[in-house]
């Protein structure tokens, strides 16, 4: 999501034409986004206030009939999603969150689980953008290529993956979401460092989350989601959540979007690893330079004895 209103519209048009690409760059590049924001400010536009836009789905509102009705979109996108956007804008106006990207707001307001008020709205805006782009007219079927290989590797078979995904979505009690995510193993938290990172640690997982929570906050790369808040399926399926999920898998999922997200996710994971290796090397070198200074305090150094 882009902070500036004008570029926001441009981005949404772009997303309409290229549904997969809207989220390619949006997974975790905090550094890059901060620079972008700074550049925008320097461009001399005066005071920039962030205003998130209600991004339309990358298809017409009736394009997913009869599996997801026009009426559902009118309410789900036109009222629910719109309300999240409007309320978020109201909540962040004039605060330090104003001007941040959507993902940054989600991270910051998640606050390690002690949710700050804008979290629900911000996360729901993100989740719904991601959800619309996870579907397409004439969707469903099976994935292919690397995505299918990984699915077979991590779940046994495509059918087993579908079962697990549907099971997670069915058993998410109350409101929430079910996700397919890419987990790039990162034991590097605090003082714990993964001594032997390997490609096999990186894998696909199915997770479910309540209310507005999404896997970004657990440092996963989301690839696919299904909304299991009741408002997502009540008009078309009433309480028949399992039917909704079956139709979603068979007729709506956009495997192109998922594949392209997987590609970005892997690229970012690799980038991050390289970055971390570089940092670690730097610290080692910097550390060696410093150790000479430390030697001043050793016993055999008379100059500092006092």
């Amino acid at each position: 999501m882009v902070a500036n209103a004008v570029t926001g519209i441009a981005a949404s048009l772009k997303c309409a034409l290229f549904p997969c690409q809207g989220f390619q760059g949006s997974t975790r590049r905090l550094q890059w986004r901060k620079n972008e924001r700074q550049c925008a400010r320097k461009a001399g536009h005066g005071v920039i206030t962030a205003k998130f836009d209600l991004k339309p789905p990358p298809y017409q509102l009736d394009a997913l009939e009869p599996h997801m009705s026009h009426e559902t979109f009118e309410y789900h996108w036109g009222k629910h999603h719109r309300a999240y956007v409007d309320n978020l804008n109201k909540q962040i106006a004039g605060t330090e969150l104003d001007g941040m990207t959507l993902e940054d707001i989600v991270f910051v307001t998640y606050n390690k689980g002690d949710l700050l008020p804008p979290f629900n709205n911000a996360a729901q805006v993100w989740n719904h953008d991601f959800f619309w782009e996870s579907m397409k007219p004439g969707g469903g079927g099976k994935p292919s290529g690397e995505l299918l290989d990984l699915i077979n590797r991590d779940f046994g078979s495509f059918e087993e993956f579908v079962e697990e995904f549907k099971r997670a979505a069915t058993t998410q009690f109350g409101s929430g979401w079910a996700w397919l995510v890419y987990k790039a193993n990162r034991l590097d938290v605090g003082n714990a460092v993964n001594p032997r990172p390997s490609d096999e640690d990186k894998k696909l997982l199915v997770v479910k989350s309540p209310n507005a929570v999404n896997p970004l906050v657990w440092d996963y790369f989301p690839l696919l989601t299904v909304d299991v808040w009741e408002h997502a399926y009540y008009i078309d399926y009433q309480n028949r959540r399992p039917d909704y999920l079956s139709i979603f898998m068979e007729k709506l999922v956009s495997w192109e979007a998922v594949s392209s997200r997987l590609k970005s996710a892997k690229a970012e994971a690799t980038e991050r690893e390289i970055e971390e290796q570089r940092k670690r090397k730097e610290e080692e070198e910097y550390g060696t330079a410093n150790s000479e200074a430390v030697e001043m305090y050793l016993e055999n150094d008379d100059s500092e004895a006092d």
Partner: protein
Amino acid sequence: MSLSSCGSSSICSLSSGILVANDPSSKLSKRRFTPSISQPGWKQRRDSSDNNRGVSKVFGYYGLKSPPYKLDALEPYMSQRTLEVHWGLHHRGYVEALNKQLEKNDSLYGCTMDELIKVLYNNGNPFPEFNDAAQVWNHDFFWESMQPGGGDMPTLGLLQQIEKDFGSFTNFKEKFTEAALTLFGSGWVWLVLKREAKCLAIIKTSNSINPLVWNDIPITSLDMWEHAYYLDYRNDKAKYVNTFMNHLVSWNAAAVRMVRAQAFVNLGEPKIPVA
């Protein structure tokens, strides 16, 4: 309204009835359980107004209790269609799921619904059966919290207590509405009588949690799961909540629950005569 259809409390064991299996070898048929209170639900099961298309093949431990009014009685504020789906599918689904789970573990047989909920809540680390059990209780309580021609105001003692604890009935209404509209995700809003604090309070809970787990006494409730209002009001929560307050909430039921609650919570100041 008969006492038996009032909201559950710890005195009145309103476990909704026990289906005795016809199979003589089944454990259940060895026990002689007859519901001690007449169960309107059972008789109404054969009514045409009862949408009985999903007759359960599970040997029931709990039964699906009917609301104390016909399914179209709350029109136009809560449509028959909503009752058919909400009660006939959701509530029924919870009952059947609960029974299925209890089949596997008969250590829980013999509990009243209230006891069952407290046991399953496990002090905040709930067992898997908790959600279904609590939702069965919650929905029983909710149907009984409404009546045709509901709304208006409470009277007498309940009104006095509300005015004491909220300032005025209008203020209570505002606070209740606010709680309902600020609840995020699925959940319930309750008017409860707090045992320790000895006062009325409004609380909102997520998913299936209810005030029994904190040992408080519910007086009335409002279902804020989307399935409760989506068919009639779509996303317009405010309209749903206002309609509930103005046309559906049963202050009669609330008053009876309040009276019973006072057997457990001493609200009055003792009048000690000065010698």
